[in-house]
């Protein structure tokens, strides 16, 4: 048994068909649990009041927005090295999901920032690098859309994803250099003493896990759609030739 067996689209479809209901149910359950716990069963922050509760959407979506790009990078590398179509299609499927998560992170941040910082938007390093990440998603999706031949598109977007990752990381540190931020630093790290209190931490971690499961579900559904689309276009072109 090796993981690569699921690079076979038929096997992948069979496995995901069985997995999806469970995964989807788990995702709904954990997202609801994390968000409802966070919204209704945590005390108000002593300074920010109940505005801080947007945290339970803001942080998970932002975390997953970055993770989604890394998943696309992994998918692109696997496609370039091993030429498994499922991998390329999964990267393609993840991009819009990641883009929407980035947008959710930006919008919830703006809504949170208005009462707390007194502004919807500031050219803070984290905010700016998220906006840049959004642009990278846009470019990646646009390149997929622009090229007709699916294999060429997969190759070129993979190259773009790899180069883009380097430049995205570079931008992340460049904007740090460029401006000091309003955004708070990390307070969820596993290796630091000063972290957010457990009362907030537990529902937040549940929400992050939930968003992760939700991302996985959405990507699997979209990958299945892409595989079916590919199959349909192959059938149609065969019919045209016959």
């Amino acid at each position: 048994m090796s993981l690569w067996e699921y690079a076979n689209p038929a096997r992948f479809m069979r496995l995901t068909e069985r997995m999806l209901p469970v995964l989807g149910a788990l995702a709904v359950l954990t997202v609801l649990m994390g968000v409802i716990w966070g919204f209704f069963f945590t005390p108000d922050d002593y300074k920010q009041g109940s505005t801080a509760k947007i945290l339970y959407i803001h942080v998970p979506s932002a975390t997953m927005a970055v993770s989604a790009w890394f998943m696309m990078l992994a998918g692109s590398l696997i496609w370039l090295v091993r030429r498994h179509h499922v991998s390329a299609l999964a990267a393609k499927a993840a991009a819009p999901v990641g883009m929407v998560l980035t947008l959710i992170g930006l919008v919830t941040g703006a809504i949170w920032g208005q009462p707390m910082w007194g502004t919807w938007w500031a050219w803070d390093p984290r905010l700016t690098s998220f906006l840049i990440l959004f642009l990278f998603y846009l470019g990646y999706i646009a390149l997929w859309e622009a090229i007709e031949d699916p294999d060429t598109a997969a190759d070129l977007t993979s190259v773009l994803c790899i180069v883009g990752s380097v430049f995205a990381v570079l931008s992340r540190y460049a904007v740090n250099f460029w401006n000091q931020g309003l955004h708070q630093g990390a307070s969820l790290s596993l290796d630091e003493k000063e972290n957010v209190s457990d009362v907030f931490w537990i529902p937040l971690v549940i929400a992050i896990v939930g968003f992760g499961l939700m991302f996985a579900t959405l990507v699997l559904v979209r990958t299945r759609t892409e595989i079916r689309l590919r199959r349909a276009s192959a059938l149609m072109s065969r019919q045209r030739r016959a």
Partner: protein
Amino acid sequence: MKALLIRDLTLAFRAGGGFGLALAFFLLVAVIVPLGVGPLTEILGRIAPGILWVGALLACLLSLDRMFALDYEDGSLDLLATSPMPMEGVVGVKALAHWLVTGLPLTALSPLLGLMLNLPGPGYPWLILSLLLGTPALSIIGAFGAALVVGVKRGGLLLSLLVLPLYLPTLIFGAEVVRRGALGLPVQTPLLLLAAITAGSLGLLPYAAAAAIRICLR
């Protein structure tokens, strides 16, 4: 390689090649901004480093889409691909030609535009140095973007969407060098980082761009 460079330069200098277009665009940016933000010299002086760098970046972007597309359409890119010269070398020469007709003249013109935008005195050497160091990175990153969209019909707009995010680190450090230089602050850190980006891009991106062209020609 030399022959290819000379050919590209000749094509650029002849009518419709786009030489001077980038320069004119750069000049236009420097004219438009004071008209937009008002003629107050202290404001202009403060934003001059950013304006000059943004202008140079957009001017570089302007002529990118013809870097490989014209050769792709008339088939000379196929010939170049079958020639003994490696594709990485072709990309390098193309980027060099692009730099010679945009980056270098832009750098030469920039002090004049700095004068028009009231850039403070100590900023001039840093403006020239940062553009000289940074524009090669703009050309080679642009070559990578142009290689990605070489097979796409009318890929100009897509090209800007792909290339501009890649330009951001260069822009940040380049403009920072000039800003600090103009205020008389130490410029060593951003200058070294800018040089690092250029060196890294020149070393690695030709491979990525050549890979993209090979994929497009397949």
